[in-house]
């Protein structure tokens, strides 16, 4: 238990009628990357804000390094770093001035600051931009500067809210390599993301939907929840396709996503031919029909439909 840096139990937060976070429970161990995954509005940002001590909660317990965050949010602030989704640094200050500001706020000694500043800027390929105003950086570089400011002191817990949204692939890779090196030093990272490929880089995942926990476990355990594979079928009329596939043998769920239909099936090779025959027989117009890798959305839809069936029965 002592290596559990974060313990969350029954966390609930309401905004008026809306329950943004609904009796959420999870934990995070020392030196692990825990991914918060879910669509927009799932409650990821609200949960991270409560953990960061910037938003009060309505019910539940949040312990970070054993300290009660909901009762005494200020106590843990020197031990954590929080990077909000929106770029939160001073655009009218330079890269170096931003870093220095946060170093002073966290009382990092001068020698440590200089050493870490060099190291962090080097790792993120930003050494040349030290004297550039933060407002003149690209989206990816802004994120990296945010990380550099968050890591100028050595936090025990790093909270990152969608750090890779709108970031180019190169910067994303650099960002993840920084996170891995942190974990190596024993830092715990909570990172929210909407990308499944990133979710797979996490040690464990917390899937959220409408404020609730859908799943909590390793990425492999998550994939195992989808028994089969996803077929993508393009069509001018996905609704008609959906009606056609519903109730077909081997079809576990079907969701229209724009102009394509995603169908979760038990055995992709067998069902591909079966569905094609079905559509031709029923004279439903369809275009390309192929197997695709499961996206986070597919797993969601499946897990949600499973839950609803469970609740129904």
């Amino acid at each position, binding site marked *: 238990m002592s290596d559990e840096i974060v313990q969350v139990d029954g966390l609930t937060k309401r905004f008026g009628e809306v329950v943004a976070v609904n009796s959420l429970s999870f934990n995070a161990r020392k030196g692990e990357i825990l991914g918060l995954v879910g669509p927009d509005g799932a409650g990821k940002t609200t949960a991270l804000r409560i953990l960061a001590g910037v938003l*009060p909660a309505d019910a539940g317990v949040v312990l970070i390094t054993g300290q009660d965050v909901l009762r005494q949010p200020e106590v843990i602030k020197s031990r954590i770093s*929080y990077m*909000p989704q929106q*770029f*939160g640094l*001073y*655009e009218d200050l330079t890269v170096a*001035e931003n870093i220095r*500001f946060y170093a002073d706020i966290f*009382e990092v000694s001068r020698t440590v600051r200089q050493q870490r500043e060099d190291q962090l800027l080097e790792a993120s390929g930003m050494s040349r931009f030290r004297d550039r105003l933060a407002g003149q950086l690209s989206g990816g570089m802004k994120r990296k500067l945010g990380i550099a400011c968050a890591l100028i002191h050595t936090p025990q817990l790093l909270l990152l809210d969608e750090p890779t949204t709108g970031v180019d692939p190169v910067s994303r890779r650099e960002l993840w390599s920084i996170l891995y090196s942190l974990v190596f030093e024993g830092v715990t990272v909570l990172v929210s993301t909407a990308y499944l490929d990133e979710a797979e880089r996490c040690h464990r995942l917390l899937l959220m939907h409408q404020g609730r926990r859908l799943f909590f476990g390793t990425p492999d355990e998550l994939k195992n929840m989808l028994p089969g594979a996803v077929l993508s079928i393009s069509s001018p009329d996905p609704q008609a396709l959906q009606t056609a596939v519903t109730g077909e043998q081997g079809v576990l769920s079907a969701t229209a996503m724009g102009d394509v239909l995603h169908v979760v099936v038990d055995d992709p090779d067998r069902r591909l031919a079966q569905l094609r025959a079905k559509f031709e027989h029923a004279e439903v117009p369809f275009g390309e029909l192929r197997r695709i890798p499961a996206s986070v959305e597919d797993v969601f839809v499946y897990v949600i439909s499973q839950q609803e069936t469970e609740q129904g029965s």
Partner: protein
Amino acid sequence: MNLRRTAAMSRKEFTQVRRDPYSLIVVLFLPLVQILLLGYGARLDANHIPVYVLDQEGSQDSQALLKAFQASPYFDVIKAVDNYHALVRAIDADQCKLGIVIPWDFSERLADAGRTSVQAIVDGTDDNSAQLAEGYAQAVVATYASNVQLDWFARYGLSQQATTPLSVDYRTWFNEDLESKNFIIPGTVALVMALMGALLSSLTIAREWERGTMEQLIATPVTALEIMVGKLVPYLAIGLADATLCAVFAVGWFGVPFRGGSGAFFLATTLFLIVILGIGYMISVATKSQLGASQYALLVTLLPTSMLSGFAFPIDQMPAPIRAITYLVYSRYYVSALKRIFLSSAGISDLVPEVVAMTIYALVIGFFATRAFHKSLQ
């Protein structure tokens, strides 16, 4: 309160002001523009009032009286007209502010009974100028009259000693020439401080909210007190620098005397700035928007400072209920202190009531300001 974090906050705030064109205008140009505008524009004395005259008699005596008007620095006799209608038209057309009518029997009655009168028609659309014109005209006529009287006495062989009527010699202290600029300009320092302090401090917290930097800031160990003090110290320093600039300008450019102590000047200015900055800061916390905050801040600082502080409108000439309200207006104490520091040789010990009142205000506002901000998104 951690000094290092507070200093970091101050340094950051100062750098932001330095790089923000709007703030720089407020800091550098506003004080000068303000003091120039008020120094030149808001003078309450009138010079060179345009005058038309209608001399119905055209005698030596009537010309002598008109010469007295011409000689006065307050009046410019622009034109002599020959009928009453022309005079009325000139006033209607705003060609003159004052019309002097000398009756056809002016010198006759002067010689006969020693009593005569001239008519002065004053354009009363601007009440203040009208009163001044009327007063100056009376003074000119009175001087002329007493000269006539002295002549008359001399002619009839009466000794001047015996007959010179009792007169009062006024001596005005501190503003010997009764120049309104000496009365107005010290008070403009208060106006500049209120305007600049309110505009800058009302932006501090709102700016963090609007630019989205607040969320990350409140996730750090910095305390609400460190944020407040750190943010306001640069504005206090800027305010004191601007006050100095205003004082130098008032003395060097407008020739206003500065007879009091500079210690008293800086003490009073510091206390006043604490009140203004505290109010601006609280408004910034409450509104979370830069535009809204600056407007509210101007309303609660500049308005009372310009209307109810005695800056331009003397408090003892206000109706009693309003006069009572001015005791609650913090700017009144600063304006009063400023006027005495500039014009009389007041030091701190002469300004005890003002300093005490402003200290109480600074403490109360400071107390509420420290409690205004909470490190929470809600």
